């Protein structure tokens, strides 16, 4: 068993770390307060080849793999989780197109997505529930060469700014996935919701009213739409959320360690107090555990395991990392005392971001259900 990164992975990690320090660290507080989509920064990541990091070179990507992606998301989220989370959501759609799309769909969409010239949303959740895909009410009815789509997807990341969306709709008694482009008559997006965390990623609704989509935009086979969506959400979404959680925890922990070494009480740094040390040790242990769960899931995908075969590892890394991110952020606040809840100290943002991760790409409870099923199978 080799715990070492390759030289390329090390160089990628260093490059992303420096990018985050240059481009995100000085602005993170203001970006979070503003809460606007950070397309300009995302474009810079695309120029560095990061948006297409799991997309094949053939389609404009860089194809460095899932562990490289995990390192990238971890490093970005350590400074500003919103940008890390962009890679979680955006790359679900790209993964789905590459793995289930026709050659024409891949050529048409992936190069522009890798350059961040276009933004993609993936939409499963409806008002009737996100955790239960079978409750989807949106319908797609085939008439001639077109599907007529009606329904509403809610709480969709990047919905207000997306150029195309992958959605899942009912086709008869089964579900199918479609690519819907912005500008298609009958397809509108709503204004963004005001969420407490991950504020640079706008979240909103996708609305379909007699929206006519060409038959060529069916993604994967008709009736196999859930496999398209769940495959992407599992392999890319859950690992992505886990990476964001890991980086968020690391950011909070680093701030707490720095503060504990600088803040003096009773004539010495509070880092010398055992009560503080124990909290730091708990954070350290949890982060290290989360990191290896995350890396393992990513390595399995790089080894060619399917999202189903790597499913338990993916579930564990999502469940555990999201669990510890908020714990670490809360401990950091506790260590920093009154300063911890002042936004300028950037720990409340970590907590707010970590809260958003509980429900992303499957709730913590759904993760437990999934793992439980596997254990007792």
């Amino acid at each position, binding site marked *: 068993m080799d715990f070492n990164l390759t030289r390329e992975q090390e*160089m990628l990690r*260093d490059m992303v770390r420096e990018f985050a320090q240059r481009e995100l660290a000085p602005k993170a507080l203001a970006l979070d307060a503003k809460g606007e989509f950070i397309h300009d920064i995302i474009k810079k990541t695309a120029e*560095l*080849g990061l948006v297409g990091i799991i997309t094949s070179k053939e389609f404009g990507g*860089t194809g*460095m793999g899932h562990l490289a992606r995990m390192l990238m998301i971890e490093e970005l989220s350590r400074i500003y989780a919103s940008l890390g989370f962009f890679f979680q959501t955006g790359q679900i759609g790209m993964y789905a197109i590459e793995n289930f799309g026709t050659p024409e769909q891949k050529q048409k969409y992936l190069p522009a997505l890798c350059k961040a010239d276009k933004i993609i949303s993936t939409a499963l959740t409806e008002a009737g529930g996100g955790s239960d895909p079978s409750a989807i009410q949106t319908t797609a009815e085939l008439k001639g060469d077109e599907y007529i789509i009606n329904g509403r997807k809610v709480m969709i990341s990047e919905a207000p700014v997306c150029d195309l969306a992958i959605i899942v709709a009912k086709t008869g008694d089964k579900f199918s996935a479609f690519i819907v482009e912005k500008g298609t008559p009958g397809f509108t997006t709503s204004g963004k919701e005001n969420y407490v965390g991950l504020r640079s990623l706008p979240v909103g609704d996708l609305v379909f009213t007699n929206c006519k989509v060409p038959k060529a935009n069916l993604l994967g086979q008709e009736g196999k739409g859930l496999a398209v969506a769940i495959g992407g959400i599992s392999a890319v979404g859950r690992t992505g959320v886990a990476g964001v959680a890991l980086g968020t925890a690391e950011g909070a922990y680093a701030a707490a360690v720095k503060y504990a070494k600088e803040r003096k009480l009773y004539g010495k740094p509070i880092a010398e107090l055992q009560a503080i040390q124990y909290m730091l040790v708990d954070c350290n242990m949890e982060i290290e555990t989360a990191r290896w769960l995350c890396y393992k899931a990513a390595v399995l995908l790089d080894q060619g395991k399917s999202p189903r075969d790597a499913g338990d590892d993916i579930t564990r890394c999502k469940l555990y990392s999201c669990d510890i991110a908020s714990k670490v952020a809360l401990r950091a606040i506790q260590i920093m005392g009154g300063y911890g809840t002042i936004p300028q100290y950037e720990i409340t943002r970590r907590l707010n971001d970590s809260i958003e991760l509980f429900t992303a790409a499957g709730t913590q409870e759904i993760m437990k259900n999934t793992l439980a099923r596997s254990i007792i199978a």
Partner: protein
Amino acid sequence: MPGDIAVCIKQVPHPDCLAKLSLDAARGTVNREGVPAVINPVDRNAVEASLRLREKLRNRVIALTMGPPAARKALEDALAMGADYAVHLCDRAFAGADTLATARALAGGIRSTGGIALIICGNTTIDSGTGQVAAQLAEMLDFPCVTDIEEIMPEDGASLLVKRAWEQGDIRVRVRLPAVLAVNAKINQPRLPNVLDIMAARQKEIKEWCAADAKVEAGCVGLAGSPTQFWQAGEFHARRQGEILRGSPDEMVAAAVDKLKKLELI
């Protein structure tokens, strides 16, 4: 510009981890264990300056370093930034070199590479900070040398115009080629390598040369060739003591001046 650009770089401890370094007083060396190593920060500016010149002049950029096997990583980073190939001067004979012995090894490497029209270095390193190597290298190669450069402007193929700063402005110097230039951190912002560059770096060549390959005699380099050698090292612990002066502004100023005089500081 006929000829290639050699950019000399050094691997140093990561600037964010300098507090983790400790001194081995007995051996007179710095204990670097557990401290990650990177390209000396201003040497990255030198690599960037070389690459920008290449974009205009269409020559090759060769990254050069002298150091132990681990220094290869610094060259890999330079290759990922865009250098065409690299030369690693790696030989036990090079160990323990002072600046003069380092410059001899680098000069040997540059002569053996051949066809170098311009050498760009960082102005100084964060671990030793002498700023001597560029000038020594120029002397050995009989090239002109300009240091502390903030801007390089290509002219014709025979010369470059460079700008160096001083307190009240800047000085522009026309330097004939071949030449040695030492740049400071103001000259540019080093680029970040993109993912494809990182992946392509592995395909690029790193030539590993011993003293014989660089055509330098073992006795002229490393510890044996160093006219300056470690004698003694000690750690200095600064102790600070604050004192708050009270009274009117005039009284406080008078008291401060009085104290500084007593300490013979003014």
